[in-house]
Structures are given as structure tokens and as C-alpha cells.
């Protein structure tokens, strides 16, 4: 059991209000039925699981959440959001938690996941498409974890799951504009903001 928590959900700028605004969700709707955690493919790797993450938000446990591995383990598969009886998009809440963690400079518990996210976005931004071989190679170099999963990687190459030649989008400049627009929405087009994806 975690201890010594002095609970005051109205202390400071409540985590729940910030996340609700950022993820456009209502975390207070959660009544802890655990259906999200029951269906989450990575919950067994997590310390809290999606339902407890929502509870920690309600309990204003900012430090515990932003430094937890759980927010980085979420694969964003949306199984939780599909199943939630209160229609909370938990994957979006997880995403918002990662954004808050990065914005506040919190040292993530799982740097490998952060590097994966950054490389993934870098490749999509510059190639217009995901490139598995490039992502794997770069991730191994960056994390220094060169030898993990080599066996299964070889099998995947043989089965054609990891194409060595990257697919490249023709309008890469358009993709980069898309990225810069979503990173700096106000700067690009004054006022008339396009609806999100």
C-alpha cells in the first residue's frame, strides 16, 4: 500500500481539470468497474492499470502518475475506450498524461518508450510513412540495446513483415506542413484552424 498521501484534490491546479481540458474527457465519470483494465493488452506489465490511472487522476496524484511507466506502456489500442461504460476515451487521457509529463520535463520512467515515440514521429514526418527497418535500427542504436529480439526480427524479415526498402510518400513537404501545423497551431493559420483528424 502506498502511504503518506495528504489528499487534497483542490490543491493547486488540479490534475483532473488539466487533463479533462487537454483530452476533452470527463475523468470524474469513471466509477471504477475495471472493465478497461480487464481488456487492456498491456495491463499486466503496468503497475496501476488504466482504471487506477483514472483513479489517481481523481485523487490528484500528479507525481506518482507522471513518473510512472504505465503512461508510456499504453499502446493506444483504444480497447479501453471501446469498452468503457461511461464513454471515457482512456487512451486519449493516457496521451494527455504523456504530453503533460513531457511538457513539465518529468524524467520518464521508461526512456525506451519515449525514444520509440520520438523516432516513430520523426520517420512519419520525414518519409510520410512508417519504416519498420529504419525504426528498429535507429531505436537499437539510440537505446544501445543491440541484441534484443534478433531471432524474431530475422523471422519477420524472412516473412516480409519488415520491408528493407522504405515506402516514401510523394508529398513529403505536405506531411511536414501537417506536422508543423499541429505542433504550432496558432502560428501557421491565423484563426481558421482546421479540425483535427
Amino acid at each position, binding site marked *: *500500500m*502506498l*502511504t*503518506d*498521501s*495528504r*489528499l*487534497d*484534490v*483542490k490543491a493547486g491546479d488540479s490534475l483532473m481539470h488539466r487533463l479533462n481540458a487537454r483530452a476533452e474527457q*470527463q475523468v*470524474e*465519470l469513471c*466509477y*471504477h468497474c475495471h472493465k478497461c483494465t480487464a481488456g487492456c493488452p498491456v495491463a499486466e506489465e503496468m503497475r*496501476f492499470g488504466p*482504471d*487506477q490511472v483514472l*483513479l*489517481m487522476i*481523481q*485523487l490528484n*496524484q500528479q507525481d506518482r502518475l507522471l513518473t510512472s511507466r504505465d503512461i508510456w506502456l499504453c499502446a493506444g489500442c483504444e480497447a479501453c475506450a471501446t469498452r468503457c461504460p461511461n464513454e471515457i476515451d482512456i487512451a486519449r487521457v493516457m496521451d494527455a498524461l504523456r504530453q503533460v509529463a513531457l511538457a513539465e520535463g518529468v524524467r520518464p520512467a521508461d526512456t525506451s518508450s519515449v525514444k520509440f515515440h520520438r523516432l516513430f514521429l520523426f520517420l512519419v514526418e520525414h518519409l510520410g510513412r512508417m519504416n519498420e527497418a529504419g525504426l528498429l535500427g535507429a531505436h537499437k542504436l539510440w537505446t544501445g540495446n543491440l541484441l534484443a529480439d534478433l531471432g524474431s526480427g530475422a523471422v519477420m524479415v524472412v516473412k516480409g513483415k519488415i520491408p528493407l526498402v522504405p515506402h516514401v510518400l510523394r508529398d513529403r513537404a505536405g506531411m511536414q506542413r501537417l506536422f508543423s501545423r499541429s505542433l504550432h497551431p496558432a502560428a501557421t493559420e491565423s484563426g481558421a484552424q482546421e479540425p483535427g483528424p
Partner: protein
Amino acid sequence: MKSRIGVFVCHCGHNIASSVDVLGLADALRRHPDVAFAADYKYMCSDPGQQLIRQAIADHRLDGVVVAACSPAMHETTFRRTADGAGVNPYRCECANIREQVSWVHQHDQTAATAKAGDIVRSIVERVRQDECLEPLRLALTRRCVVIGAGIAGMQAALDVAGAGYPVVLIERQSALGGRMAQLSGTYLNLEDGSDRLTRMIAAVERHANIQVLTEAEVTVCSGYVGNFQVEVRAGRPGGDEATPYTLDAGAIVVATGWDPYELSRLPEYGGGLLPDVVSTLEFERMLAPGGRLARPSDGVVPRQVVFIHCAGSRDPEHGVPYCSKTCCMVVAKQAMMFCQRVPEGQAYAFYIDLRTAGKGYEEYVRRSAEEHGVLYLRGKVSAVAAENGRLRVSGADTLSDLAVDIVADLVVLATPMVPADGAVPLGQTLHISTDADGFFNEAHPKLRPVETLTAGVYLAGTCQGPRDIPETLAQASGAAAKVLQLFSHEEMTQSPTVAAVVEDLCAACATCVGTCPYGARTLHPVRAVAVVNPALCQGCGACVVACPNKACFVRNWRPTQVLAMLDQVGWSGDRRTG
């Protein structure tokens, strides 16, 4: 005396006929002494079956009927009415149960089942040979109702009975009507409307021509029986000068004595009775009421952080209340919402074990408290409340997050349970109705007879029977009133005549039966030296028959000679002289 008895064996379709040789059974019975006629039929309870009985009574001049069929609980009334219609006294018509007691339990052994059915039918024939012709008892009926307790339950029952045209005496211990509901700040689901309706209800009771209200009055003695109670009432302040006991005649009594709050001092671990800023939900009601002052009792400051503790004392055998008080989950939701509306910058926390919100619109109401008013529900019990720098430190756990939490609160509200009103147990003894282990009055059957008691003519309404909320209380009060009106719809009462009687020549007036009778139906005659039976109270249980040392007692149509003759037919071989 010779009888002419008809035996009618029912097949009950295949229910009986598949495992009992019904033809052989009827054949064998024809040879039994005093049996003038025996027949079998597929469904004796059907119209043709009943016609067969009527025809046989006429053709064979029968004076007694035995129907070998299902349990008497099923069709005794049916067949007695059939016999009565054909000129046989209904109390000389009996059912021999060869379905539930024979065919259904011996489906694989026809020989043994038939033999057992024969034993049972012959024993019932023996009983009918000695059955007396009886008439139903007719008893006088006082069509006036006494209602004890003038909360919403008592007032609703009084209005319903009075509205049907019968006089009601409404007895209230306090000086004003309204009971606990008058202490509420508002009711959940419809906050404002509740108290307004209560005011109108009190006015309707006070001006009703058929309702006599006695305040500051208590029932001290109750004697008599259904339809004929004598209720002694002491009016005026207890110990005061004007205590004037007088006796009312009443046909029915509705008990609506309500509830008391659990004492805070029984919860010292939560600071109950020790810390001024730890209050009960009923006390918090007063702070939230229109015109009430929402302030900490210790320093008068408006509280910002309020912690509610559900199940404070209830669902807790250690604290003497093992039951769920049923209304508290909704009360906390209501009070937390009212608090959040009054103090928008405030925060309400609620520690709970389960949220129990069974009721129309209840779940949605509790969800609203969390969704719209930000009440934070924490699943776990509080271990301690302690004073800390003028505020209260609440130490508890949230078992869902596995988090031990400390909350520094300005005010702690304990959702304490309803307990029976003070004096309920002695009142129960006065009225001869029982209370359960917690002190609530017992209903006659926990599912099927929820507004009656085991004492005929005494009915229950509201929280005196167990915790419940206002709509349930009103429904039960109207149910109790319907039972009273059902009783009052008759000019007089009828009752089964198969009750105890005394052979006066043998009675020594030893009063053993008076002490034995569980229904208070036995007394010694004021002049003659014999015991007498009050047939209105007697339930025919036979306890007096067993207890009487002189064998001066018997139950009509269950005489010892009948029972011994019955036992002879089922292979009993006891010593008649000691029997």
C-alpha cells in the same frame, strides 16, 4: 354413532395415479367401517369432480366426506364449500394428502405408495367418523383504528383509514406531528417539495373530522384481540400533573413508531461525541435546512473540506448494528450536493464500502453528485478521525488505488444508521408483537406478509419495522391501511371454530393452560372455578391439551379419541392408557 362417509380418490391427472393404485384404493376403502361410498376421478377439484361429490352425497345420504387428493392447504376450502353446498357440514369434510405426502415422494414403489396412501386415507376416515358439526365463530368488531406514531407513516395510515370513513385515533409521544421527516432539510430527488408536502399532510390530519390526534400521549396497556382491542392511553407529559389514563376500544392497531438516530458517542474512533466538528447526518440536516447556519460547531467558520463517512456504525456487528441502514447512501449524496451548492469552492469527500442505490432514479442521483458536483468517492473505511491544529485529520484508505489517504477536513459528517425508536421493545410487549434482534418489529412473513404482525389486527408501517426511506414508508403505510379497511369491510368477524374447549367437569382451575397458551387465549373464570377459552384469540395449536394434567382440554375435531383412532390406522402400537 354411525356415520355415512364418502371417500373420493383423486388421480390428479398422473400426479397421484402414476404411483398410487387409485382404483384399488377406492375398492379397499369401500370395505372400511362407516364408509358408505367410494369412488375415484381424474380431477376431483374440477367442476365434474365436485359434481360427483355432490351427487354421491345426495344419492347415498352421506354425512361425512374424505377427499384423498392434494394437501389441504391447496383445496380444503374448495371441497368444504362443495360439501356445504350439498348439505354436509363443512367441518365434516377433510382432505387426505396422498399427493405431496405419498405419490410425489414415492414415485418408484407403487405397492408401498398405495399401502401408505391407504393408511393415510383410513386415518382421515377415522377422524371424520368423530368430527362434530360446527359453525364458524362470529365475533363483534369495533370499527375504529388506533395509530401509534404521527410521523409520515402514521399520518399516511391515519389519512387512508379516515378517508374511507372510519374513526382513527392518532397517538403521538411528542408534542408535534411530523416525526423525523420534520427534521430534514429536504428530501432527495425532489429537494424542496418534501417539507412542503409534510406541512400539508400535517394540516390534513389536524383538520380531518375522522381523526382524533392525541399528542404527548403513550399507549400503556393493550388487551383484547383483533376487532376488539382495549387500548389504554396516558396523555399529558410523563411525570406531569395531567396524566389522564383512559381506555379506547379499537378494532385494529397500526404501529408506526419510527426510528432514532444512532448515538454519536458510540463512535469514539471517529471523534463522535468527543470532537465538536464531528456531526451526524441528522445534525448536518439542521445546518443545511433553510434558515440553518452552515458552520463548524467549534468556531462558527464555514467548512470548506467536508468528509462524509458512510456506514458509520452500520454493517458493523462490533458496533451493534449488523444491518444496512439503506437510506444513508442517498442521504450523503443529497447532503454533499447541497453543501457543494452552498459552498462552491468547497470539496466533499465520501468514504464508502459499497454504494447501495437501489431505487428509481437513485443511481443517477448519486452519479450526479460525483459528475456535476465533484464529490469524490473513496472506497474504504476510515480508521480514525483526530483533531489537528483546529481541524480534523481523517485517516483512511482508498482500496481501489491501494492508497492510504489522510484528509485534513473542517467538518466530518457520520452517516449513522437508523435504530428503532426508544421504547419500541416495551411497546412490542404491550401489544404482544415481537421484535427482532435489532429491536425492529417483526412482520408476519419477511416476504409475503410485510405489513402484518403475528398478532391479528396489529399492523406495521414505516421504519419501526426496519430502515427504509420515505416512498417505501408511505407505500407500507397505505398497505397497512388497506389491511385495516379489509378488516373493517365486514359487519362482524368470522373465525374457524376448530379451537380449544374445556371439559368443565374435569377442569381443576389449576391455570396450567393459562401460562402455557402462547396467544393469551386462556383465563380462569372470574366466578366459577374453571378455565375458559377466548375463541377469538385461540389458534388451535393444542399446547393446552398437552399441558392439562387432568385431560380437561381438547381442540374441536382434534379430540384425543380421534387422534388415537387415526394412529391405529397407521400401524401405531402405543399404550392407550398413557396416550
